[in-house]
């Protein structure tokens, strides 16, 4: 049974996308993917917990990476293993419009098949859709406590201790393990993969030869569990943002203009 499961996803690199307002659609000039920034922070948190000691009484701490959605290839998982996850499981399946509700069911089944876990970590929000549902839905499906939007997390002696960032400040929260915790992006600096490990993961050799497994979604859940909750009916983009104003003049004049504009904003 793994100690820590991390859910990792990917997002299109925003610098390769252009939005054409007249055509009302996104054009992908360069199809490249980044790991979800918040998920990378979750993985970093997992690795730090592993390095600090075991979260529960078990012979050896293990971090397992799972995909947050159904992906066309296992690159995301390879990156997770290269960065330090002990192993990863690629989920294969042709499922249309797999949403967070569907994935929560599938992932709960994976956790059960793995024999449980001490802790599930994932990102609190996705870069593209701004969704934070997956962690809470999975916690419900597993019947575990959940702590979302954490700034800091530690796990030891059967307990998880986290600091949440709320609207009014920081709150310390604790729970018994097993639990689901979602991690905010931008707080922990994700580590770089170890070079030799990265080479070996991608070549599938040496100690990395068995690091990736593949499971079929169809083996995990019934067909009706694979019906998405969300139906996509179309897309609409937010109104054009009020553009900034170009300020010119002497430094004193520019400072004056900017200060005035800021005062106006604060009043509003």
């Amino acid at each position, binding site marked *: 049974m793994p100690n820590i499961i991390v859910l990792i996803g990917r997002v299109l690199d925003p610098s390769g996308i252009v939005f054409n307002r007249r055509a009302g659609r996104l054009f992908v000039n360069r199809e490249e993917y980044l790991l979800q920034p918040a998920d990378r922070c979750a993985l970093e948190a997992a690795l730090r917990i592993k390095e600090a000691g075991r979260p529960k009484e078990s012979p050896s701490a293990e971090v397992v990476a799972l995909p947050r959605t159904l992906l066309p290839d296992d690159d995301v998982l390879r990156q997770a293993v290269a960065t330090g996850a002990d192993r990863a499981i690629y989920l294969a399946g042709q499922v249309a419009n797999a949403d967070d509700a569907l994935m929560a069911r599938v992932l709960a089944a994976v956790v059960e098949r793995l024999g449980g876990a001490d802790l599930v970590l994932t990102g609190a929000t996705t870069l593209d859709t701004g969704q934070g549902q997956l962690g809470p839905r999975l916690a419900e499906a597993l019947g575990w406590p959940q702590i979302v939007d954490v700034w800091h997390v530690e796990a030891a002696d059967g307990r998880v201790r986290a600091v949440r960032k709320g609207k009014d400040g920081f709150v310390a929260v604790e729970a018994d393990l097993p639990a689901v915790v979602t991690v905010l992006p931008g707080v922990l600096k994700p580590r770089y993969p170890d070079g030799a490990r990265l080479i070996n993961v991608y070549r599938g050799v040496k100690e990395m030869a068995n690091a990736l497994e593949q499971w079929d979604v169809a083996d995990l859940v019934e067909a009706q569990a694979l019906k998405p909750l969300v139906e996509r009916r179309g897309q609409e983009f937010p109104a054009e943002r009020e553009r900034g104003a170009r300020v*010119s003049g*002497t*430094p004193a004049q520019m400072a004056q203009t900017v200060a005035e504009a800021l005062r106006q904003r604060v009043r509003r």
Partner: protein
Amino acid sequence: MDFTFSEEQEMFRSMFRDFSAKEVAPKAEEIDHQEKPPLDILRKAASQGFLGATLPEDYVGAALDYVSYALLIETLAHDCMSVAVTLATHVSLVAMSILETGTEAQKEEWLPPLAAGEMIGAFALTEPDAGSDAAALQARATLDGDEVVLEGVKTWVANGGIAGLFLVFAQGPQGVEAFLVPQDTPGLTVGYREPTLGLRSVPFNTIYLEGCRVPVANRLGEPGKGWVIAQRAQDRMAVALAAAGLGVARAAVEVAAQFATERVQFGVPIAQKQAIQSYVAEAHVEVEALRYLVYHAAWLVDQGGEFSFDASVVKNFGARVARSVTNRMLQVLGGYGYMEDYPMARKYRDARALGIIGGPTELYHVRVAQRIFSEWNVEITP
């Protein structure tokens, strides 16, 4: 056609070389590395009459013809391009604009102190959004009684940090106008000096004009006719910059040639290697060609007629030769060419400026093309 300098011009050249070898060459490295303006050198140059080089004696000038002046600029640039550019800004851009377009009163007021070096002239035309494009000038000149109020920002003001007098270009109601603004005029602030790749001791500053009031009498030339002044100034400067390019290129060839005869590798001086011979020979050819173009253009200035087209040609070629020769001659010096305790690195950095200051190379291509195509009645818009 007589391709020789006159006896007097030869004498001047000799005098300029002596001055430069004594006063400029020994300081060139220091002023570059410390990025400080060549004030001492300018003072000494003033006492030789160089700051009023082409001004008539009535205005305390040295009354040199433009050919002799080009010799001066070439000679100074041979040892230090920064000094050459500083001096050329003062003379070609500022003093000669006043000489050519000023009223008698203006000439009497401003030329003698400029010629004596009591005040240094700075040229304020370029703006953050307006390089070569007159229509894009944003600085404003508004008439208020017998004063003009100037508002705006000027960048790349050569000599800005040490100037006593600024020649400022701004949009008036009838078009671009030129104004003489003393440094201590309230509302004129000299700002930041951009650190640069080369020409490190030329004080290029940004200046700010905020409610800067000057008497109407400080306007140079007719209302709305300032752009012509700017163009003529830049044409004169183009010839001077080409002379500077000639100087730095000639110096680079000399340094490299001497090095090639002293540096022994593979048992012989590298001067014996054909590749090195090609580099030096080709550089010499370019320098020679530039030499004749420069002095022809300077001669045209002295003839008093049109020289704008030739100024464009010579600036273009001068920039090209200076850049390519300093680059190639740096290669001859090998590792030594890259070290800042040898002069070549500085010459390379300085020469690179010629492709940009006074207008980018591409602009000069357009001007030359405009003239050529106009012979077939086709008008080119840049």
